[in-house]
Every structure is written in structure tokens, then in C-alpha cells.
């Protein structure tokens, strides 16, 4: 049959085209599409080498320990941020909520004299409630996440200031339990804090939940294509709501880490934590368009932000240039993501 022959030739021609040798650049693109963690990891390694050359104290265990401690707050917040961004959303309120929750915990333990565990529990509850509020705005009222969380960013900031009247509560008033996250202990040549361990635990637990539970699959499905997920039987509105609730809880845990790190509950801490958490997620290869990315990437992204800030100050670069460098890093990361996505869809 002629049609069969024509078809066979077409297949062969297509197969010849498909089997063509790839340029090294195309090969790289494919590998990066499959393993989105590789590019931030490469940036991190290159940065570490460069900073070590600039200042040979950079790679000392004491400095690496310090970086991890500096990263613990952004890193913890970025777990919550990753969840939200995976659903193609964004949470502008995580930083403000963390400060608000830390003020709730601090006021309850410091001024009201509540026992630490109770203050923590109530703080976590406030985090969950605030997350639920964000979630209701996004999933039920159907406001764009950017708008909802822009609003709650102001609300949480105002509540924190109203609650504290602008004053801080120092560590000695908070009691041992709330500042427990600053407890330091040696691991080989390194010095970790319980706050760092708590952050790493958040990554391990949520990483497992995302990869190995139905809820995790549904988070990816909703972020990937929400109407499709709904038609496939995923209760997407409920998934969205739950993502913001879990994010609220994770932010509240981050507040505990924050109190330990500052040894105080204060509204003047971590004001740029919010944008840094988005930076960490984006550098880590999670797509702002949802559905693609992993927590391992976010962790690498958070460490990269920390390494840049620490390494540049060790190299005696002005703090303003650090911010400049972070800005360039964000744009480069998103540009890379776009490039990988464009070629990833083709095959």
C-alpha cells in the first residue's frame, strides 16, 4: 500500500530527526529540566569557591555553622513559601505573619506570664488561623493570592505593632522554652542550634509529604492545571485552602526559630525575610507558574542566599552591593527557569 510506505518513510525521517546528535547546550537543557536542583547547586558551589578565594575564612566550620544559623529563619519560611508557590500562588504575608506570631508568643510568655509551651501552642494556633484566613480569601472568595496576601501583609504587620506598642520583649523575660531554639550543640567541627535542626526537620517532613502522599500529588496537580485537576476529581478548592493552613502552621514554627535566633520577640527583626523567602524558592528552581519544583531546591536556594550575604560581607563588600547581587541572582534564576521550561515542553 502506498499510504503505508509514505507513512513508514515519514516515520523514518522523523526518527532520523529525533535521533540527531544534540548540541551540548541542548543536552544540558534536558538534564536541567529533569533535575531542576542542579542549576542552583552549581551556583552554590561556584559561589562557595569564589568566596573562599576572596577570604580563606569562608569555608571554616565556624563560618559554615554561622551561615546555617543565619539561614534558619529564611529557610524555614521558604518551606511555607514553596508550598504556596507550587500551587501557582504567592504568599507576601509570610514574613509579617512570622513577626506577628512571634509577638503573640512573646507577649503571652513575657507580659502575661503564660508557661512557654502554652504560649507556643497558642502562637501555632494563631498561625493556623491566619493561614486559614489567607486560604479562604484565595480558595473561596477567589481573590488572586498576590492581592489577598498583600492585604494580610498589612493586617499582620499592623496587628504585630498594635500588640507590642513598638516595644520588644527580651529573651530573659520569655523563659527557657521559647528561646530553646537558640540552644547550640557541637556536631563534629560544626555548631548547630536546635533552630537549625527544626528547620531541617521541616524540610524532611514536608519533602516526604509532598513526594509520598496523595495530598502532595494534589498540590502539584492543582498548581500544574487547576481546572484539569478539578475535572479529574481533585477537590482543588479544599487543597488550596489546606496549603495555606499548612503554610500558616509552618510560618508559626518559623516564628519560634526567629525568637531563638534574636533572643527576643521584636517587630524590628527580619523585615526583609518575606522577599528573601521568595528569592530562596525561585533560586531553588521552583516555577512561579506552579506545578514544578522541590523542597530540596528551595533548601539549596536558601543556603545560596545565605552564602551570598555572608560571603560578600566576609569579602568586605558593602551591604548595598549584597542586595544588588541578590537581585541579579533572582533575575538570573527566573530567566533560567523560563529557558528550561521552553525547551522542556518541546522534545
Amino acid at each position, binding site marked *: 500500500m502506498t499510504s503505508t510506505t509514505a507513512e513508514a518513510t515519514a516515520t523514518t525521517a522523523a526518527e532520523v530527526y529525533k535521533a540527531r546528535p544534540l548540541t551540548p547546550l541542548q543536552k544540558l537543557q534536558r538534564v536541567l529540566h529533569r533535575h531542576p536542583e542542579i542549576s542552583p547547586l552549581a551556583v552554590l558551589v561556584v559561589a562557595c569557591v569564589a568566596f573562599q578565594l576572596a577570604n580563606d575564612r569562608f569555608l571554616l566550620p565556624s563560618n559554615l555553622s554561622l551561615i546555617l544559623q543565619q539561614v534558619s529563619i529564611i529557610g524555614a519560611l521558604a518551606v511555607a513559601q514553596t508550598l504556596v508557590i507550587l500551587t501557582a500562588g504567592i504568599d507576601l504575608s509570610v514574613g509579617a505573619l512570622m513577626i506577628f506570631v512571634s509577638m503573640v508568643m512573646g507577649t503571652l510568655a513575657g507580659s502575661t506570664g503564660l508557661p512557654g509551651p502554652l504560649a507556643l501552642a497558642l502562637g501555632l494556633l494563631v498561625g493556623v488561623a491566619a493561614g486559614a484566613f489567607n486560604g479562604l480569601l484565595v480558595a473561596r472568595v477567589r481573590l488572586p493570592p498576590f492581592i489577598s496576601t498583600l492585604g494580610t501583609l498589612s493586617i499582620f504587620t499592623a496587628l504585630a505593632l498594635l500588640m507590642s506598642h513598638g516595644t520588644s520583649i527580651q529573651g530573659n523575660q520569655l523563659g527557657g522554652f521559647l528561646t530553646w531554639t537558640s540552644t547550640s550543640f557541637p556536631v563534629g567541627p560544626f555548631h548547630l542550634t536546635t533552630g537549625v535542626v527544626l528547620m531541617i526537620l521541616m524540610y524532611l517532613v514536608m519533602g516526604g509529604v509532598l513526594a509520598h502522599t496523595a*495530598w502532595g500529588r494534589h498540590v*502539584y496537580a492543582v*498548581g500544574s*492545571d487547576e481546572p*484539569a*485537576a478539578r475535572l479529574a*476529581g481533585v477537590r482543588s478548592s479544599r487543597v488550596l485552602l489546606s496549603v495555606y493552613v499548612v503554610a500558616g502552621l509552618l510560618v508559626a514554627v518559623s516564628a519560634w526559630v526567629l525568637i531563638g535566633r534574636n533572643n527576643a520577640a521584636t517587630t524590628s527583626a527580619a523585615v526583609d525575610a518575606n522577599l528573601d523567602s521568595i528569592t530562596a524558592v525561585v533560586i531553588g528552581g521552583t516555577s512561579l507558574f506552579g506545578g514544578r519544583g522541590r523542597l530540596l531546591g528551595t533548601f539549596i536556594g536558601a543556603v545560596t542566599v545565605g552564602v551570598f550575604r555572608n560571603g560578600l560581607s566576609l569579602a568586605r563588600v558593602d551591604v548595598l552591593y549584597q542586595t544588588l547581587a541578590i537581585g541579579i541572582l533572582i533575575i538570573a534564576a527566573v530567566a533560567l527557569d523560563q529557558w528550561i521550561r521552553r525547551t522542556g*515542553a518541546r522534545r
Partner: protein
Amino acid sequence: MTHTTPNDTTALLSARGLVKTYGSVVALDGVDIDVHAGEVVAVIGDNGAGKSTLIKCLTGAEVPDVGTITVEGREVAFRTPQDARDAGIETVYQTLSLAPHLDIASNLFLSRELRRPGFLGSGLRLLDHKEMRRQAEEKISALGIRTIQDISQVVETLSGGQRQAVAIARAVAFGSKVVVLDEPTAALGVRETGQVLDVLEGLRARGLGVVLISHNMPNVFQIADRIQIQRLGRKAGVITPRTHTPAEAVAIMTGAMELDAAVAP
């Protein structure tokens, strides 16, 4: 084709006197339809003939104003697509409703994930990736889809025909009785269309009821046992590929010809 209309058996899915209005627009004006086990019923009609509204009512996406729907003789009232799915009626939407970033197995089991046995599944709620992959492979090959080599492939890397196959596989993978497909070949090339039609024949052979909405007359006449023609919100008639030609079908569809009730099967 030696198929006869199985009028003597209870229909898997049937509807009587469906009416659906949107304000002053009458989309359905008392429409009946029957789908039996092991038959392919095609629904054709011009734009605005009420094809998609009919399908939406059958699959729970819309609730009819008047009329009854029965599944295997039992009356049902679908409020959501999930209700229809629970009753064994699956829909393959034109948009396919696949999550592009998830792999084939994850998409097949989306919202019906399998958990690990024992405490790992019930307590920690961990997924059984291995079992889902195994079953997905089994279900895909049972449909006779040979072009998919790797079940862990991400859906966005698949061709149009392969995606269609995955969507159909999901629709029939969980013991459904009736599969409704909305324009399954609209975006496909000739060879891929052939593959999808083969899959539909396989479903008919397995005793499922298939409802096919299509604009493609050659496809419809190749696969359908009966063809329901919709015109201006009413059922203009039901014909078979043996009794009528595509040209006659188009004539009935556009109102150029009336279907004589006496010859209607």
C-alpha cells in the same frame, strides 16, 4: 457491521425528556437518549444543537431543569461530575484534564491514589508508587496503546494522541460502565485518530457503553452503532451507518431533510 440495536436490554444509561434553559435560551427541549452495553452512540449536530448541554447533563456538569436520567434502570440525580463518576459514568473532556507536570501513572491515579499496605499507608498515608506504576502499565497496555514506552514520562512530553490515550485509560481504568468522549479526535492527526478509534472499539468489545460527540462524519460513520442527530435543542432522530449515508445525516442535521419516523430504528 453486524450490530443490532439492543432494544430488548435495559439501557446502561438513558435520559427522558431533558430540558435545560439558560435564561431565554432553550438549550435542550425534551431530549431522550439511550446507551446500551457494548455499543457506541455518536451524538452529532450543528453548533447550538444542544450536543454539549446534553452531555453536560449526562455527566453531572449541569443539572437539567426537567427530565429523568437512569443508570441501569435506577433513577439518578447528578449534582456534580463526581456523582456521575460514582455511578460509573466517566467523561473524557476535550481539554483532557491531565496535569501536565505529573507523570502518566500519577495522572491515571489522580484523586484515586493507592496507599501502601499496613501502617505506612493507613497511618503515615504513604503512596504506593510501585503498585500504581505497575497497574498503570497494565491498564495502558490492556487498551492496546503501544506508543507509550515509559510510564514515568511526564504528560507534557507526550504527543496529542498519547495524551488522549492516557485520558481514556483513566476514564475506563476504574470499573466505569459508560464513557463519554467530547471530540476525542478533534486535535489529532490521521494516524492518531485511528489509534483512538481502535481504543474505542476495544471498549465496545469489553461491553462498555460509549458516547461519542464528534464533528467528524467519517469517524462517526466508521465507529458508531447508532447516531443520534441533535437539531435546535431537540432530537432530530437516531440513524445507523447502515441505513443512512453521511450526506443524509448532514441533511437531517441542518434541517434540509426530515427523518421519517417510520424508518427510524
